[in-house]
């Protein structure tokens, strides 16, 4: 699939793009320490500003996109990136579901702006944080907050070899059983999102004696309602269940919908003093 010259030489060109994010998923690529130099011989790192100043002109064979769309200019930029990318893969929760910054989707962004900035008029932002697929066609979505490095290498290898990536869509529970970890929900009554969360982390949290907090987002057929009932039995309040589904994948549809069912005892998240901040005229 590489952009080859007339003699058929040339490596596939890889580009890495950043939108609103923490850089952690890009860093996962740099964290493939043992595989980084071999990877650089397998693909041409054509655009990766976090790693190099060198820029190779597009089009690119594979674009990795980190981060969510939160500004008008980014909403335009993603279309330009799609145009110069043969394959476009989103990496991480921000690019795939809007990230933690999608909590604004449930709030008033003007209020958010005035909480953080003395001059909200200097700050340009959209009302909502949206995943890349809300804007352009995406060829593959890699889950995780952050993504897993082995899964990233598998996805890159698959696209170079022109095959589907072998990424499981079952739940963390399957990984937990395979790992032989004790079920923290059954054995200790610890609230756990493992049954509705996509595998990929290796059941990390249960192995550390804590419940899964859903950083890989929803698995393909999550029964969130049944799990929510169980969380209530384990002693969580409605507001806690709501917050449990509203973290790094709050914008993913199954998690968003389940969180909306638990708005009953909503905590007082607004304070009167927030309302006093009127948005200043530009």
């Amino acid at each position, binding site marked *: 699939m590489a952009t080859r010259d007339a003699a058929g030489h040339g490596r596939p060109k890889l580009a890495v793009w950043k*939108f*609103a*994010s*923490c*850089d*952690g*998923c*890009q*860093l*996962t690529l*740099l*964290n493939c*320490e*043992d595989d*980084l*130099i071999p990877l*650089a011989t397998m693909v041409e*790192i054509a655009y990766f*500003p*976090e*790693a*190099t*100043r*060198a*820029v190779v002109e597009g089009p690119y064979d594979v674009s990795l996109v980190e981060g969510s769309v*939160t*500004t008008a200019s*980014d909403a335009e930029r993603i279309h330009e990136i799609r145009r110069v990318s043969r394959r476009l893969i989103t990496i991480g929760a921000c690019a795939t579901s809007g*990230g*933690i*910054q999608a909590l*604004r989707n449930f*709030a008033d962004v003007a209020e*958010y*702006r005035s*909480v*953080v*900035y*003395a001059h909200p008029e*200097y700050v340009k*932002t959209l009302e909502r*944080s949206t995943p890349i697929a809300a804007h352009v066609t995406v060829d593959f979505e890699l889950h995780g*907050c*952050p993504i897993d490095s082995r899964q990233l290498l598998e996805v890159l290898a698959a696209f170079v070899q022109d095959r589907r990536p072998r990424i499981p869509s079952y739940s963390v529970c399957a990984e937990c059983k395979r790992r032989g970890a004790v079920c923290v929900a059954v054995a200790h009554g610890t609230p756990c999102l493992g049954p509705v969360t996509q595998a990929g*982390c290796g059941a*990390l*949290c249960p*192995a*550390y*004696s*804590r419940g899964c*907090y859903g*950083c890989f987002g929803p698995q393909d057929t999550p029964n969130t309602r049944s799990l929510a009932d169980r969380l209530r039995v384990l002693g969580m309040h409605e507001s*806690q269940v709501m*917050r449990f589904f509203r*973290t790094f994948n709050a914008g993913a549809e199954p998690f968003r919908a389940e969180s909306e069912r638990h708005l009953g005892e909503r905590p*007082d*998240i*607004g*304070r009167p003093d927030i309302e006093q901040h009127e948005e200043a005229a530009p």
Partner: protein
Amino acid sequence: MTHKLTQGDHVLQVDTLARVEGEGAMHVIVRDGLVADVELRIFEPPRFFEALLRGRAWTEPPDITARICGICPVAYQLSSCLAIEDACGVTVPEELRVLRRLLYCGEWIESHALHVYLLHAPDFLGYQGAVEMVADHGAVVEQGLRMKKAGNALMTLVGGRAVHPVNVRVGGFYRLPTAQELGSIRPMLERARDDAVGTVRLVAGFEFPDLVQPHEYVALRSPHGYPLESGSVVTSSGRAFEVADFGKHIVEEHVARSNALHAHLEGVDGRTSYVVGPLARYSLNHDQLGPLAREVARDAGLGQECRNPFQSIVVRAVELVHATDEALSIIDSWDGASAASVEVPPRAGIGHGATEAPRGMLYHRYELAEDGTILDATIVPPTSQNQPGIEADLRAFVQERLDLPREELVRQCEQAIRNYDPCISCATHFLDLTMEES
């Protein structure tokens, strides 16, 4: 990166600053051959952490604020833990404080190795990036990657994973590592310590542009050694205050055309800029370095204070020696802990916490309701504190180099900015270069 150069009005634009974490721009105004102003512009989109933390539970900031930065998540986790524990009137037992320090050593090793080798060394050796360096300096790049891997392995062992560790909680940890697990990482850390000593020798031989800056340095100082997971605040002009008084001494201003907030030190003579990070830490805590780190610093020609921002790469390397050395001694003396965490029952109140992120002091403040609901959150990351200092460096630096070809000037300015390892993702509250001449 695009460079637009039009002869008439002398405007130079670089859209993306490479090899920094996050996105930003630099704007230089030159009048009659004199640098009139330098502005750093941050166009990393705001993510509103301080707002979205309102209404969350007091137990949530370690996981949520880790997502501010994938390169220094532990800094965010531990500053938030300290602030919340302070609000709730809890201090974690000594052995958990030491384990936090061990985890933090892992983050310093990973972050400093990344910056020294992959982000900053290519500037000094004349390459576009570390991948381009491999052909000529393969052993050097491998040394850097090996140390980075050791740092990540330590974070994975203590924290569960290298990016956004899962094992940190308010009150301590979810699970304690065993002495055997800690022992297993010893050979890797010993190699990393040797590599770190080699790094100091390597980078001390680089050529450093002549720049001495009279910055006010601000760092933590702690009775527990070189500042890392706790301490109170000291400055190079002799001020000292508790972290709880941070807001009385340091003010944040929102600067136009930027999504970052700038921090200043409040003084009797008005507001002054200041600098945090390796140079400040080193200059204010030289006596707290371990014997090996102090010895290699002396051999590298560093005094007790360092005022050339370009030598920050040498200080980072010295800190790599300290962090690997201290991690090894913590592992050797680890005798377990009675529990992985202590209870932190919520109460109404305000708490403050500050730790030394790889890029400098990171401050958190939380106001809690009686049931632990977060009413207000303030986070002051290192890069927003360093922004005025970076601009001051550039004003001095660019003035002496106005005759350079533009491409070369841009490259050197980027290098000067990278002295601060600016984490723009963190400081959205960084760089395409535009230059205006009249």
